[in-house]
């Protein structure tokens, strides 16, 4: 395999890999239109926000002194 082919293959993989990852993150299933992992990141953000908000609420109502 010459260098030109290797470079071409690497370039093609670099442009294809994100598409593969995207498909992996949004798989459709026979039992419905739900996805497996697309919601994970938004859920993680929501849960992190919840934790910060809850901690602030607890701190505000914690008995003083």
């Amino acid at each position, binding site marked *: 395999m010459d260098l*030109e082919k290797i470079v071409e*293959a690497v370039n*093609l993989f670099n442009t294809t890999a994100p598409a593969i990852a995207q498909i992996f993150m949004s798989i459709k*299933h026979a039992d419905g239109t*739900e996805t497996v992992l697309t919601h994970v990141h938004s*859920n993680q953000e929501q849960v992190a926000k*919840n934790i910060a908000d809850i901690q602030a*609420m607890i701190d505000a109502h*914690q008995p003083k002194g």
Partner: protein
Amino acid sequence: MRIRIARTRLLAAAVIMMLVVVACTDDQLVRLSNALDDTTAALTALHTGVAAAAAANPPLMSDALIVKIGGLELKMNKALQDALNATEKVAKLSPADRTNLSNILTPVISAVNDAVKDPDIAGIKNEKTRATIQTSLVLIQTTLTTSQLMLVKK
């Protein structure tokens, strides 16, 4: 020409990889992920209700109860965070994943079961606040129990 053939082969390999990933995806993982989505929504609804009651002037619950429910909320959200992290990069639930997730969910389900029966929560005087908290807790109990059921190997 040879480059075009190499490109075609690489694309074919990519398509096969995608099909393998889809074929390996676990139906129970899909249902677990959906239940964790529902748990996130229910926990957010619970916190919205508790935060509104805490922010009212005067607050609709005692400071002690706000701190008590807040502690439970923290426990549930941290367990959910661990469960989301554990499911983020898997396409199929392995026996180790099932054990790990069960260990995350079991204690928090027990805590929610206790909270559903908690007389302090049942005794919240403001009807709307009490209903919001109790309804959210039952929903969380249901979604977490559903999540746990998905960990039992079919």
